[in-house]
């Protein structure tokens, strides 16, 4: 490239940046402004009535893991908090696993239909998205509750005579989240499987691989980007889930989202709520960075021959 061309290219690039500057500034402010408020609040003293006092304090951050003894003022590990974190991570992880186990065969089924049928199946998969999350979650509750669909059916069939308590426990939350987030797993898996060259299956069988070996050594490694994308798309919102654990888990089975809400409401501890929010954000960001990096590395994996 000649010097003049180079200069020309740089100028036009600079003009491009200048033109988009207003939009970029707005975006930056809109994205980082509220975050900045949250960050600042996490380092302030909590107020008596839920507001904040403008004094520097790290109590919000220590409050994540420790609680102060009301008598001797010593710090102790806050078991209740740890239980909530552990439940959040556990349920999100299990949700990811369940949606994968259900979503993979579903995505495979759709991707192996004729193109015209694929569109119909994909549409069916996304239908729940058109319905309000609250309504969907209540619908699950309606199915699970003591006088609900399942219990009524089982009693009528004479299989049980007392309704089984299925609502307001971790299992109910899991069912609800798996249902709500399943499409987020199916769609990226579908797009990875759709690009998968089915002729590789025959090559695998020809080279003495059993069905399980073909799955493990050919299909899974090649659709890995789709698996990672789906897992993160399910795991991240699961971790911050609020509506589902609230409605299906009852008051006791809190997840991080409910816990944060509690701090800004009845708990009246805004700094702790802010610190918890920041922590969640960091965890999610790390997960996304991991995702982007693996995609960058394995990007050529999905290509065709």
């Amino acid at each position, binding site marked *: 490239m000649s010097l003049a061309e180079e200069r020309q290219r740089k100028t036009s690039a600079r003009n491009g940046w200048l033109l988009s500057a207003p939009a970029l500034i707005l975006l930056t402010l809109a994205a980082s402004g509220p975050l900045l408020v949250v960050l600042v609040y996490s380092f302030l003293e909590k107020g008596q009535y839920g507001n904040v006092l403008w004094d520097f304090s790290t109590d919000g951050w220590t409050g994540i893991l420790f609680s102060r003894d009301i008598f001797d003022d010593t710090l102790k590990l806050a078991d209740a908090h740890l239980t909530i974190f552990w439940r959040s991570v556990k349920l999100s992880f299990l949700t990811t696993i369940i949606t994968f186990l259900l979503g993979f065969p579903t995505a495979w089924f759709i991707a192996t239909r004729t193109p015209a049928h694929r569109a119909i199946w994909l549409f069916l998969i996304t239908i729940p998205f058109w319905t309000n999350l609250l309504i969907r979650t209540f619908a699950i509750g309606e199915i699970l509750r003591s006088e609900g669909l399942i219990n009524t059916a089982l009693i009528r069939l004479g299989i049980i005579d007392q309704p089984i308590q299925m609502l307001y426990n971790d299992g109910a939350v899991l069912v609800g989240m798996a249902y709500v987030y399943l499409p987020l797993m199916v769609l990226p898996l579908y797009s990875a499987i759709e690009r998968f*060259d089915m*002729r*590789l299956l*025959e*090559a*695998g*069988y*020809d*080279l*003495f*691989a*059993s069905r399980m*070996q073909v799955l493990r*050594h*050919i299909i899974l*490694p*090649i659709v890995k980007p789709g698996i990672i994308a789906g897992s993160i798309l399910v795991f991240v919102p699961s971790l911050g889930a609020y509506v589902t654990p609230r409605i299906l888990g009852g008051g006791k089975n809190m997840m991080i989202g409910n816990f944060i809400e509690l701090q800004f409401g009845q708990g009246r501890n805004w700094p702790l709520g802010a610190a918890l929010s920041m922590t969640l954000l960091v965890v999610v960001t790390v997960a996304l960075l991991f995702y982007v990096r693996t995609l960058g590395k*394995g990007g*050529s*994996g*999905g*290509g*065709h*021959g």
Partner: protein
Amino acid sequence: MKEDIAVTAESVVKSFGHGAAAVRALDTVSAAIRKGEFFTLLGPSGCGKTTLLRLIAGFETPTSGRILLGADDVTDLPPNRRPVNTVFQSYALFPHLTVRENVGFALKMLGRPASQISARTAEMLALVKLEELADRATAQLSGGQQQRVALARALAPQPKVLLLDEPLSALDLKLRKEMQVELKRLQQETGITFVFVTHDQEEALTMSDRIGVMSNGKLQQVASPREIYTAPVNRFVADFIGETNFLPVTLVKEGARLGSGEIVAAEGKGGVLTIRPEQVNVVRADKAGAIGARVENLIYFGTDMHVHMRLGDGAALVARMPLPPGGDGGLAPGDAVGVTFAKGAARLIEE
């Protein structure tokens, strides 16, 4: 001898679809492919070559009939349990594995120890001359290199039979010629039975020990290239392989009588006489025993010349001769000439 047979197809029928829409891709095909031979399936597009190969590999099961490998009936065995490997037309290399891992794949699936896999893989890479590219991703290879990886991958587990479905059709002409030589060398070095599919007759004639000519789901003739060329059993084979003349004849005591009345000697049986253009000699019209003809046209092909003629009854006949030093050998359209057939070259075949 039964022990010498690597692959047997016994009255194999393969139909796709049901009822009125059913396609009979293979129609009662029987063949015996010998151990260590380079066997080629040749035929026009859609004649069932790939279907027969897929039946041998185990990707399809026959509608009726049996497939045997050696003495074993493998008709109902899945592909991963047949000692047969395939070089796919699309190569079907694993995009997430390196060249080395692709080549070692089958041995890994068979659970061989790592030391054996790496030794065998290295041996295969040397055989196809790809040692330097062993750790590349397959997407970074040229078509010819991918072809070699596909070959090495299929040869690594030492199959009893190697199936190749038009493996050269994606390559350009020069590379194709190189790979033809290469394939032949590999086949001779490894001693493995090759079943090779092509619709390129020249490829089939130069590479094969024996050729099976197919059309419409039927195996028309199985013979050596020379025999296929010089003694085709029917009009389809004669027409498909090389160029040839067809003349309707009636059989008489002395031989075959042409439409124009002359009687020529011919071997075989049937109502059509075939003669290759290069076996037709153009002579003076008054030469004894010559068939009368009239030159219609002269066409030059570099070193060769084609003489298009008509016999007394209007039947078309083409002769091919090396270009005479003078240019046209004294021939011109409209000339009356005589025609003789090289001894033993004229053959009778079924319509």
